[in-house]
């Protein structure tokens, strides 16, 4: 019997080894590691969701996904599971007094029931522990006699359960902060694993790095992915023909890749307009890197910048679609300029440091996120659009490719940590930082998707 057991275990571990090895080869998975900024976060509790179904437990632990999302936002500090003072799944059963003693501001409870057709019925409730007596509803001050801030029931396919957890996190975030959540979104990035026959991969994963999928794999470098506003397409630069060319690919449709720019010189830095009809990009077909706008319907290119000796690149649309921010070294060194597409007048907008690049505006247009070099160190920084004051957000030193979450609350960027290129996240207020180390190879060029619906 004893030998039998050993054999059984050996076989199991061999199987496990192959499964793990296979998974590693197939997907380059990211894990978030919180590196800084929990102290200022609000204490909440996300209780484990109850489960009624054929299997012992659901495929995914919804409450840990919700908790991890909220923690990663930097705004909340969910209580550790072993410290939870209650394990309930309904608002009625939440003991407000118990949680109040612990200083917990809000509690998330939920339940999941497997349906005869295999779908899952997911119930969720958000409880405000410190009762509000009154609140404004439709412009009127009314008495509130319940502590339930939000609730809903949804039917989801079993395979969508984990992503649905991000939607719950979005609701919690919005109810508690007043700002739309951005967890039920995707990130695209480029992974480089030189041990693979096709080392360069354009990847798409959930906003927490889960479920990475290869969108395009190549023996040659891939750069600068950019989302279409409907979050269905990616524009990117591929060197598959030995030099930079711009492609657009629908990530949900096979064989949908289209080459949109392959002129003499460089073809780079694509950026979809907010209405999705145009693509700003950089071409050096006329001898010098200049900003162009490609009309995706007529396929006509219009040249936006007209300089002779300077580099003009990294176009980024203002939220209203009327202007482009871009990087230009028409002065000494790269700086950010803003050019209105109607007047074609450009103005310089950055003045601090001798290297400012990769700029983008938050959706409210009030803050510009960019890469700033000061004393030879490259940081993610924000500049107040009104006052032009700049603030460095990061302590890492080789930052590049910053990309804003669609709600403007977080920035994902590429940096170097322990001699490897990794992705990191920093809140736009600079208070919170997290790292997404990849398990294998290097990851770069992250770009946060727009809202998915």
């Amino acid at each position, binding site marked *: 019997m004893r030998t039998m057991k050993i054999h059984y275990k050996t076989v199991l571990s061999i199987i496990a080894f192959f499964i793990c090895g296979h998974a590693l080869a197939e997907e380059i998975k990211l894990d978030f590691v919180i590196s800084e900024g929990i102290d200022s976060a609000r204490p909440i509790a996300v209780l484990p969701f109850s489960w009624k179904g054929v299997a012992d437990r659901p495929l995914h632990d919804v409450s840990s996904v919700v908790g991890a999302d909220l923690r990663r936002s930097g705004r909340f500090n969910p209580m550790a599971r072993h410290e939870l003072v209650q394990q309930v799944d309904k608002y009625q059963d939440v003991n407000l007094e118990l949680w109040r003693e612990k200083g917990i501001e809000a509690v998330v409870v939920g339940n999941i029931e497997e349906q005869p057709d295999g779908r899952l019925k997911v119930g969720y409730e958000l409880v405000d522990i410190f009762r509000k007596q009154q609140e404004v509803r439709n412009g009127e001050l009314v008495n509130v006699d319940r502590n339930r801030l939000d609730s809903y029931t949804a039917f989801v396919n079993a395979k969508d359960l984990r992503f649905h957890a991000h939607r719950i996190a979005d609701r919690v975030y919005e109810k508690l902060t007043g700002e739309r959540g951005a967890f039920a979104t995707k990130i695209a990035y480029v992974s480089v694993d030189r041990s693979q026959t096709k080392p360069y991969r354009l990847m798409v994963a959930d906003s927490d790095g889960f479920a990475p999928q290869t969108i395009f794999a190549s023996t040659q470098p891939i*750069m600068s992915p950019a989302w279409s506003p409907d979050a269905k397409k990616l524009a990117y630069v591929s060197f598959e023909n030995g030099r930079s060319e711009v492609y657009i690919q629908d990530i949900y449709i096979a064989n949908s890749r289209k080459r949109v720019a392959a002129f003499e010189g460089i073809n780079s830095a694509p950026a979809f307009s907010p209405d999705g009809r145009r693509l700003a990009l950089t071409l050096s077909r006329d001898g010098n890197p200049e900003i162009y706008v490609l009309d995706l319907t007529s396929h006509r290119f219009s040249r936006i910048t007209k300089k002779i000796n300077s580099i003009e690149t*990294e176009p980024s649309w203002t939220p209203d679609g009327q202007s482009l921010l871009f990087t230009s070294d028409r002065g000494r060194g790269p700086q950010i300029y803003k050019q209105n597409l109607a007047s074609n007048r450009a103005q310089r907008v950055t003045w601090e440091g001798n290297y400012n690049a990769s700029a983008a505006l938050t959706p409210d247009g009030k803050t510009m996120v960019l890469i700033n070099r000061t004393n030879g160190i490259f940081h993610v920084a924000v500049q107040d659009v009104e006052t032009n004051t700049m603030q460095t957000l990061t302590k890492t030193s080789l930052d590049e490719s910053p990309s804003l979450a669609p709600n403007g609350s977080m920035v994902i960027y590429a940096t170097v940590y322990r001699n490897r290129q990794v992705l990191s996240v920093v809140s736009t207020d600079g208070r919170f930082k997290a790292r997404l180390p990849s398990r294998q190879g290097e990851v770069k060029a992250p770009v946060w998707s727009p809202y998915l619906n």
Partner: protein
Amino acid sequence: MSITKLGKGLVILASATFLFACASDGQEETQTVTPPVEETTTTTIDTPPPKSAEELAAEANAETRKARTVYFDLDDDTVSSEGRALLEAHAWFLAKNPSVVITVDGHCDERGTPAYNLALGERRAKAVAQILMLNGVSSSQIKTVSHGEEQPAVQGHDESAWSKNRRGELSYDG
């Protein structure tokens, strides 16, 4: 001694030989020809015919041209004097062989943003092409490609890697 330095030395040697040959040609008419002393004592050593100055120069040039990379300073597209000498050696050959086509690949280190670096890499490739053309190479013989920071020669995140990665590389097509 690096191949570049060795190559340079040979170029100088070849040039000197060439100058000497010219000078002696001029003097030969006025000199009385004295038969060599050892004319009758034939040896079995088979001395190869002396190489012409042109052959020597070509050999030296081929040696120099084994080096195909020039390096740049941070944020800069100025070719150093050492790099310029190497490019002149390539230009000498390319000008003599107008059917030969080369590609100049411009690269950057990882610092700075990838899209800006792609443009900077192009500027470096063009700076290399410019020197080749100033030395008699036809523009139709040169293709330029920028790789930005995407193809580092050396992996690593410090100056020892960066200095090797800020480069222009020549490759002969075909």
